[in-house]
């Protein structure tokens, strides 16, 4: 690189005025708080409490009121665990794998809008970007599986890769219906399109795309379930078969990063589903550019997100694990053809109406 280029580059960075850095710092700080909080909340409310109640037991009750601090206690416990690298492992890749998984989780949060101005960065390619960075986690999981030099880990890593890429396609194709209806990839504009939308000329409740894209919503939910490697799609981390799959050699906080990544991504995907299918932060009535939506928006989005998350976790606690062949059959022979048909039908309706 020539010095002139470097000079112009530093010039460009210095030209950013102070408010940019301040607002960026605030956004970074907020999201750094939101992600662990979201992971803890989902873990406590659904994984510990809802599952316990569904199985007629109380779940954790000791740490804090109703066991609400249980996960924090677990976190502190993990903090004190010895950091073990297996001697045969590929050390660098082994150490970096949790980082890659966590990066993929963090980057999804950049585009999720929580209000007219309450968004980290309003990218034009919004949803496309979110799907792209969410699939980065496959790389991290394959790295973890391969670098452990363990037969269980390798098998789990390969199973995870096979599953994640198979369900990546229905996920992407299900979103296509929403993109056709809204005519944009920008999540902020998808929200406005839903609030101002009309169903066959009637705009009383706007057009939350779940009403017209219910097939897409169904495919999206199933695919998200598989992307999170949760039951009934938990082949890659099946404890009773391959003792945790790609996580088997990880200890202490490195192990916890996979957990955080999983629940952080669960929240992000639930939020994405809420934004794309349930109308996001907006209500169909009122002025969407009003500043009040910056305060009310996050609350509305949170309620919708938790509604989607309830569905996701409800599936998790209800169905038994699928076999590898059933899993691939469901993706390739049912979900992908269905989502292709969904795209064509949505297109026909869009052009005809």
């Amino acid at each position: 690189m020539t010095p002139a280029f470097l000079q112009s580059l530093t010039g460009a960075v210095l030209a950013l005025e102070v408010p940019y850095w301040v607002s960026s710092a605030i956004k970074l700080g907020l999201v750094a708080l939101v992600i662990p909080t979201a992971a803890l909340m989902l873990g406590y409310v659904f994984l510990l409490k809802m599952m316990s109640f569904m199985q007629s037991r109380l779940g954790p009750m000791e740490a804090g009121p109703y066991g609400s601090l249980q996960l924090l206690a677990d976190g502190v416990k993990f903090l004190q665990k010895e950091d073990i690298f297996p001697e045969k492992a590929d050390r660098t890749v082994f150490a970096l794998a949790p980082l890659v998984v966590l990066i993929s989780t963090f980057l999804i949060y950049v585009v999720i809008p929580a209000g007219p101005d309450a968004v980290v960065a309003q990218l034009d390619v919004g949803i496309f970007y979110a799907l792209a960075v969410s699939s980065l986690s496959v790389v991290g999981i394959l790295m973890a599986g391969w670098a452990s030099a363990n037969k269980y880990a390798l098998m789990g890593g390969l199973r995870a890769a096979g599953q994640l890429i198979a369900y990546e396609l229905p996920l992407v194709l299900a979103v296509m219906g929403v993109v056709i209806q809204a005519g944009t990839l920008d999540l902020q504009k998808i929200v406005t399109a839903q609030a101002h939308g009309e169903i066959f000329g009637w705009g009383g409740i706007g057009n939350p795309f779940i009403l017209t894209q219910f097939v897409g919503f169904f495919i999206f939910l199933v695919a998200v379930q598989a992307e999170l490697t949760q039951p009934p799609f938990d082949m890659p981390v099946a404890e009773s078969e391959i003792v945790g799959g790609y996580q088997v050699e990880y200890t202490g906080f490195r192990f916890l990063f996979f957990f955080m990544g999983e629940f952080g991504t669960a929240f992000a995907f639930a939020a994405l589903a809420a934004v794309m299918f349930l109308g996001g932060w907006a209500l169909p009535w009122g002025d969407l550019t009003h500043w009040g939506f910056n305060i009310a928006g996050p609350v509305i989005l949170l309620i919708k997100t938790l509604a989607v998350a309830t569905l996701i976790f409800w599936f998790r606690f209800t169905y038994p694990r699928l076999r590898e062949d059933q899993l691939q059959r469901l993706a390739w022979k049912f979900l992908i053809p269905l989502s292709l048909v969904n795209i064509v039908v949505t297109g026909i309706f869009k052009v005809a109406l």
Partner: protein
Amino acid sequence: MSEFLRDYLLVVLFLGLAGALVFGMLGLSSLLRPTRSQSQKYLTYESGVDPVGSGWTQSNIRYYVFALLFVMFDVEAVFIFPWATRLEAYGTFGLIEMAIFIFILALGLLYAWRKSVLRWI
């Protein structure tokens, strides 16, 4: 710096944030955790018995075939996205074009199906 680049600078900052969280927590943990090395601890886990052979074993070829199929379909999906955003402008012409494209795509899937590539085992 343009608005466009600023938005992507935020993406880079988030990447740094994830890195800071990982290294920060591991750094904090290194102050608290014990390190008592013992050769047994560093053995590869294999259900409690001594590991046999290398951990990097051969695996099923199916994973590779599915990965190839995935690459094909994912590239197609990238082509559908720009069309989906502009469908209103293209109208019937765009719809018929994409119907042909998706038909060919479905033929590919059907071919793989007939060749029983989609069957595990």
